[in-house]
C-alpha cells in the first residue's frame, strides 16, 4: 500500500479496519475507526508490547508509535481533497508519559492545531479505559513536502 492509497482508504474506505498494509502499524496491531470527523486508532494488548514484565506495563515506545501514527493518519484525513497529496515527514515529536500503560487495549486520537503550507502541528493523546485519564500525550511537527 502506498501512502496515497492509505489516504484514500481513510477518506473513502470503510469507517473501520486495520492498518495491515503499513508494516510497522501492522506490527503494533493497529486498528482504525472513523467517528464523524474524528479518527480513533486502537492498539489491542499483546504480550509483545510489554516493556516491563513484572508487573506488566506497555513499553513506552509502543505508545509513542501509536501516537505518531495517529497524528500522521489524522493529518492525512484533514488534508484538502482537491489538492495533490504531499509527502509527510515527521520533524519533531515530544511525548509526555502521564500514567503507566496497563496490559489493556490502548486508544489514541489527534487534533490538528495548525495546518500550514509547509508544517502541520498536531496534539495527540492516548488513553485506555477512560479518555479523561490519558496515559500519554504528544505534540508533533510534521513537514508537508509539496514538490
Amino acid at each position, binding site marked *: *500500500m*502506498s*501512502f496515497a492509497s492509505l489516504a484514500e482508504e481513510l477518506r473513502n474506505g470503510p469507517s473501520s479496519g486495520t492498518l495491515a*498494509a*503499513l*508494516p*510497522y*502499524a*501492522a*506490527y*503494533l496491531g493497529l486498528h482504525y475507526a472513523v467517528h464523524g470527523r474524528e479518527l480513533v486508532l486502537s492498539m489491542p494488548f499483546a*504480550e*509483545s*508490547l*510489554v*516493556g*516491563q*514484565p513484572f508487573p506488566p*506495563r*506497555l*513499553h*513506552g*515506545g*509502543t505508545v*509513542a*508509535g*501509536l501516537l*505518531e*501514527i495517529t497524528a500522521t493518519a489524522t493529518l492525512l484525513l484533514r488534508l484538502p481533497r482537491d489538492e495533490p497529496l504531499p*509527502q509527510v*515527514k*515527521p*520533524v*519533531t*515529536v*515530544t*511525548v*509526555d*508519559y502521564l*500514567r*503507566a500503560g496497563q496490559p489493556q487495549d490502548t486508544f489514541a486520537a489527534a487534533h490538528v492545531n495548525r495546518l500550514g503550507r509547509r508544517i502541520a502541528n498536531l496534539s495527540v493523546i492516548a488513553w485506555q479505559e477512560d479518555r479523561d485519564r490519558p496515559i500519554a500525550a504528544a505534540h508533533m511537527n510534521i513537514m508537508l*513536502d509539496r514538490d
Partner: protein
Amino acid sequence: MTGPVAADEKLRRFVDSFLLGIPHIKALGIRYRGHGRGWAELELPYADHLVAYPDAAHPDGGIVASGAVLTLMDSVGGFSVMTGANKLQPLATLDLRLDYLRPATPGESVIGRSEVHKLTRSVAFVRGVAHNGDPARPIAHMTGTFMFTAGAAQ
C-alpha cells in the same frame, strides 16, 4: 563520568539476556552494543516489518518507522540512566523528544546512544543520538527525562 568500559563477552551476554526478558525489546530484536558509567548503546537491526511504508516507489519506502526509532531511544535512554545511577531500579519515562534530522538508511541497523547529563535523587536528564553507524550523520537527536519510581505509586 569515567571512560568507556570494554564490553566483554560475558557482560554482553548478561545484558542481552536482561534485554530478552523485556518482551517488546525482544520482539524488535534490539541488541546490546556497549555501556559505561552514564552512557549506553543499543542496536535495532533492520527488519522489513519495522518500516513505515513498504513500497519502493515512496520516497520513504523501506525506511524504519520513526516509532521504532523512538522505542530504541526510550530503551537506551532508560538503560543509560541505570548505568549512571549504577543500579537496576524501576524507572518511568517522563518525557521524550526526538528531532528527526534525516531518514534512516533502508537496510541498515539503527544504533542508539544515550548519555546522562544530570542525575538528581528523583530525576535523570539524558541526551542521545540515533545513527546508522556514523554518529556524525545522525538520524535523530533525543532529549529525555526519566524518574525513579521505586516506592512510588504508579
